């Protein structure tokens, strides 16, 4: 069709070609669907939310000052807060404790901004190396011993307070929860996408082949799906964990390989009706091969329901991963995922509620967004219900 258009434009009859070109600009079903989707506020808001979460999860851990596996032993289970740690009242006890390790006692103690000056004394000779004991605490940095007296029994210690922000608090091991939530999101999102694309690939191929060939082939292929369907799903997953335990990427490729059953059924149903359409008949009459018909005519036309199903499959897989992690079968420490964080949070709910709240907000927002997008796509592609 494009070719005829170009040919028409080359002809000198200018006025005629213009009308032809104008007639060509129609609104395809996809344009219509896109317009309907854009009008759906919940779906668009969900797209934005999902975009923000994905960007945060992929860039956040890189930009964050804390490593996702960095342990701050002085900040175990500190609550979420916008102001920096340490709190001023916590500085002096921490200093006393650190100096006690160095066998120094404090004579006087002043804080000016981030600068600490402390006069210290000891019964033995003070060595400059002792300032390391202060640096070892997560609260201080750049500690130095200066102005040692001649007998080396008194001196001045200067150090800076190492201000750190824990916007989401820290977990039971003293790791920054924000960085962990973001890195967990990366894991969960990658797993969701990976498993869904594997399911998509297998399901679409299997379903379209089964539907297109029909007859006995279809019967056998669908019987296989039925048998796999009645096998308890969690049994499969646990076996996969047993086989691929250490490697979660491999495991989720395998989970995707289990999740394709619904997809295959949907695509098969669609294919059964599509293959009776005139354009498929025409393609067959023109001698297009089976592969060509499937690729060019059948699969593109099944995409509507498939796209909807995939947007609903991604949250399902993320939830499944969380469920496995909750059972202790998923991602292993120090790597983490939303499911792992939530199950830790659920254990520490009393006294450290932020450990449950923040990962749950991220997980539910993502699932919400994906569900709304899925619903929006369904309404956009299948406007019958509106």
């Amino acid at each position, binding site marked *: 069709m494009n070719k005829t258009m170009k040919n028409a434009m080359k002809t000198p009859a200018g006025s005629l070609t213009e009308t032809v070109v104008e007639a060509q600009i129609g609104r395809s079903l996809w344009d219509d669907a896109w317009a309907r989707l854009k009008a759906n506020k919940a779906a668009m808001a969900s797209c934005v939310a999902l975009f923000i979460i994905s960007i945060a999860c992929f860039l956040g851990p890189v930009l964050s000052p804390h490593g996702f596996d960095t342990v701050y032993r002085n900040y175990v289970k500190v609550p979420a807060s916008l102001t920096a740690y340490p709190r001023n009242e916590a500085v002096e006890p921490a200093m006393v404790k650190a100096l006690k390790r160095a066998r120094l006692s404090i004579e006087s103690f002043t804080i000016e901004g981030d600068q600490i000056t402390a006069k210290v004394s000891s019964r033995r000779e003070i060595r400059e190396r002792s300032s390391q004991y202060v640096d070892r605490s997560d609260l201080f940095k750049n500690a130095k011993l200066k102005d040692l007296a001649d007998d080396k029994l008194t001196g001045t210690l200067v150090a800076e307070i190492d201000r750190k922000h824990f916007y989401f608090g820290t977990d039971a091991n003293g790791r920054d929860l924000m960085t962990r939530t973001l890195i967990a999101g990366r894991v969960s999102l990658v797993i969701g996408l990976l498993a869904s694309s594997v399911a998509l690939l297998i399901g679409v191929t299997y379903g379209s082949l089964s539907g297109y060939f029909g007859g006995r082939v279809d019967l056998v292929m669908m019987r296989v799906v039925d048998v796999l369907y009645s096998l308890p799903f*969690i049994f499969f997953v646990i076996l996969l964990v047993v086989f691929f335990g250490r490697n979660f990427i491999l495991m989720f490729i395998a989970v995707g390989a289990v999740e394709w059953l619904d997809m295959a059924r949907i695509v098969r149903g669609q294919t059964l009706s599509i293959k009776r359409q005139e354009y498929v008949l025409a393609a067959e009459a023109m001698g297009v091969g089976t592969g060509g018909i499937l690729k060019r005519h059948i699969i593109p036309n099944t995409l509507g329901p498939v796209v909807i199903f995939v947007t609903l499959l991604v949250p399902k897989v993320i939830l499944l991963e969380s469920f496995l992690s909750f059972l202790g079968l998923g991602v292993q420490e120090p790597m983490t995922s939303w499911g792992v964080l939530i199950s830790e949070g659920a254990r520490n709910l009393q006294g450290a509620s932020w450990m449950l709240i923040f990962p749950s907000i991220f997980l539910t927002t993502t699932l*919400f967004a994906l569900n709304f997008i899925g619903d929006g796509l369904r309404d956009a592609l299948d406007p019958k219900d509106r």
Partner: protein
Amino acid sequence: MLRYVLKRLLTAIPTLFLIVTISFFLIRVAPGGPFDLERPLEAKVMENLNKIYQLDKSLWEQYVIYMGNVLKGDLGPSFFFRDFTVGDLFRQGLPISIEIGGYALLLALIFGGALGILAALKQNRAPDYSVMTVATMGITIPNFVVAPVLTLIFGVALGWLPVGGWNNGAWPNKILPIITLALPQVAIVARLTRGSMIEALRSHHIRTARANGLPSWMVVVVHALRGALLPVVSYAGPAAAALLTGSVVIETIYGIPGVGRYFVQAALNRDYTLVMGTVIVIAVFIMIFNLIVDLLYAWLDPRVRYD
């Protein structure tokens, strides 16, 4: 109809046979065995254990023996819970799981259905939006988040209900597990009912019923609901099978002695017989409920015929 039921039950036998066979070999292929401990047992002890549990025979012999026993109704001894047979474990746990799951299913159908109808009747108005928001929340918030939060509110903060345990099935102990189990199902049923109800309310026979001057409650309950129930019924079948065979998360969090926990535990402990028992029980439940769904379908929709 009796003939149809019989035919369905007969065709279920080969499927069940296939399922049992596949899972038997799958779990055996998995690395590790039921008696592998962190510190390996002495060779002689291991040999004796293998002899007692007939693990020293070839896989085929074991398969034939196992299938023979299953046909006699004997699911074998549990490898992990010594002194218990798999049958004993199910006799103790299954009624508890069925009770919790049954109530949850009932709640889901009643509340989910009612909310769905409400949302459909007030489509695109405030009640619809609020029901759908709550329903989406019910689907997206995982039950292992809901469970601790509910426990904290009702068990710890308010102190109205026990935080866990079974206590021989006392009512206060059942409430939280049933609610937690039912919430996502309520949400899904509400969504399904709303969708199909909207479609049903637009169909010709409803317009005719309204035109004939039937009272609106009758139009909704008698005429629209019947058709709208079809997708709910086809969802409720597999869902019922899943609910009645117990939930790992709920049973672990609330400490309920049902059968839901066995599956994960057994597979991880390579408790071969218990895994197989669970697979068989779940498969039988799925098949029974699929049959019930098909029968209900034909009863609800006269266009459906058994062939």
